[in-house]
């Protein structure tokens, strides 16, 4: 990739000691992040499978629980996250062009939208708390199939909570990209930290794209078992 950057310039070069050149370092970092995302798919996959098993076992209870979701907040959040993914993509492209000022601007926008998402999420959680729908001691739902309805709320909080945790980690990673951009670290040869963080951010957004319909949308329109 770069013939000019070698170990002789190690003081200033971003090349790490175990690699021969930046191309190798880029390759390793990219494969590493893709593999990490594969582990994340399996991690969330376990949750999705469990959710689907119970959803098919207790469709009425899950439909009932879905009606307590705030569809408007979920829809706004979906739009916010898609917007943040766009900003992220622009930040990555700016990094590839070595335009450090633009990287800063787009990274800040990504972080802003990510924060908006989390604020709305916390607001939703707070409403669940006031409605006493948080599983455990707080859970005060008194309709039919109480335990099964509670189970959906368990999955709601675990899945969105795990997703929010990943958003927090993403905000930390974006801060790192911001610092790199402020130091004018990105160039046409060295851009892959932004690229790798971008992969992560898009993945976290994609998880939400699956969570939103599963938790908010499909249950609410359940009409009971289909009779032919």
């Amino acid at each position: 990739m770069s013939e000019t950057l070698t170990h002789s310039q190690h003081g200033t070069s971003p090349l790490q000691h175990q690699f021969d050149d930046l191309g190798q370092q880029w390759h390793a970092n990219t494969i590493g992040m893709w593999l990490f995302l594969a582990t994340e798919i399996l991690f969330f996959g376990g949750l999705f499978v469990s959710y689907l098993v119970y959803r098919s076992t207790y469709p009425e209870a899950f439909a009932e629980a879905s009606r307590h979701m705030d569809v408007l907040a979920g829809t706004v959040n979906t739009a916010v996250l898609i917007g943040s993914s766009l900003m992220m993509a622009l930040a990555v492209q700016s990094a590839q062009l070595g335009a450090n000022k633009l990287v800063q601007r787009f990274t800040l926008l990504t972080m802003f939208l990510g924060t908006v998402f989390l604020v709305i999420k916390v607001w939703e959680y707070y409403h669940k708390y006031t409605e006493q729908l948080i599983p455990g001691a707080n859970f005060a739902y008194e309709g039919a199939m109480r335990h099964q309805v509670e189970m959906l709320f368990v999955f709601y909080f675990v899945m969105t909570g795990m997703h929010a945790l990943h958003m927090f980690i993403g905000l930390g990673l974006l801060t790192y990209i911001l610092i790199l951009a402020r130091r004018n670290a990105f160039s046409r040869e060295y851009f892959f930290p932004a690229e790798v963080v971008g992969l992560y951010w898009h993945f976290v957004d994609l998880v939400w794209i699956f969570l939103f319909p599963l938790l908010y949308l499909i249950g609410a329109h359940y009409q009971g078992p289909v009779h032919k």
Partner: protein
Amino acid sequence: MRIASQPTYAEKVPINYLNAEHGLKSWLLTVDHKRIAILYLLSVTAFFLVGGLFALLIRLELLTPQGDLVRSDVYNRLFTMHGIVMIFFFLIPSIPAVLGNFIIPIMLGARDLAFPKLNLLSWYLYMIGGILTLYAVLAGGVGTGWTFYTPYSTVYSNSHVMVTAIGVFITGFSSILTGLNFIVTTHTMRAPGLTWSRMPLFMWSLYATSLIQVLGTPVLAIAILLVGIERLWGVGIFNPALGGDPVLFQHLFWFYSHPAVYIMVLPAFGVISELIQNFSKKRIFGYKFVAGASVAIAVYGFLVWGHHMFTTTQSVYAGMIFSFLSFFIAIPSAIKVFNWTATLYQGSISYQTPMLYAIGFIGLFVIGGLTGLYLATMGVDIHVHDTYFVVAHFHFIMVGGSVLAYLGGIHYWWPKISGKMYPDGWGRFSALVVFVGFNLTFLPQFILGYLGMPRRYHAYPEEFWVLNVFSTAGASILGVGYFLPLVYLIWSWFYGPEAPANPWQARGLEWQVPSPPPTTNFPAPPLVTQETYEYSLEEAEVV
């Protein structure tokens, strides 16, 4: 293979990874894969001793038919802690994290793994998980069985389930990061000329192992997380009284934990492939099949978890498919065994210590593998499910397979790791003791299980007494067999004669660097011009 410029030994003590830096800090903050391997070596050995202590207490209790040494709930905790410590803190990290960490970058002709800092983080995660688990042991232990089956683990058990579960959860991430590091290293750090089809078979095995670690472990993490949430919040994810499904937990658990068996045994295959070739001085028979079988096992390993659940509510048709696939996975394992034995044919075999372990491995693994086919047969499995037959079967794989290969590998690469030679006579003697002790311990358990002795009970009818005495006697011999290498290897570290760079006249890049290797492994990136195992060529033509 050829290295551009072979480093010459300095007059007195050459600089190597051991004496390059001194002090505790230089070890605890190191990013050198070789030093991290030593950190792992010390810690897995400590956990092996802890797990062994539990095994000792189990066998002592079973020496007599009455439950006279410990109460039944204490016995539950003994076998649980034995399983958890041995599986998560010894077997899974043993070969990959110790031997793999040390050898992989050198085998590939690299200066280090792709992510050295991540490698150190893996060790710290492993230690944090291990210390939490040891805390649970000291605080009173956990009695759920290593499988954490629900709803016992979430509702009824009043032992230290949460601390242990968090310990296993954290250690899982150590395993994931190690696997990720190895895969990326294999893809990106190979020396020029070291193509996939020239790669050592140890690499193929660890690559396949890493795939399972990366793809399986997250599912265990989520299963444990859900157990923790159920236990803390008192909700019913897996508790049938609250609408949950305990069998779902078993599916999630075994989706990881059956492939985990291959995490433990695939690296052993890799070690054995290296040992068999070197000590018969012959290229492996059917390189591509042996390499491909490792990957095939990693893939099929994900499709057979249901054979742990033949006696649950899993549907009969699912059971039949799982049964069929479990038979199917015996094929790649058998390919390996046949190819090792075919490699021995007309080889110049020398019976040094590592080779004795390798030959012992083949015999015991064949028994362990074939009894696995009994268990894959649904009808037979109903009869022997949860008996000592199962216990004997998986100990043949885990101890007769993985532990023997680990010991063989440690003996093989010890001169490279320590720079010292150990007394081969003692080595051969202890290999023999391990083999005899192992068979005496576990062969009787096949019979016990077939006669119907269930696992996980601290008392048994008197008709099972004699065989249990044999088993306990064998365990004592096995203990001696483990203790001997601990003594003479530590002795050799301080007092053993200096090891040459290539004491076995072996092939492979790791034997072309000095023993012990310098911190950067190679003075310049090596250029590989041949496949690894050209034992037909004379030494002079290769180096």
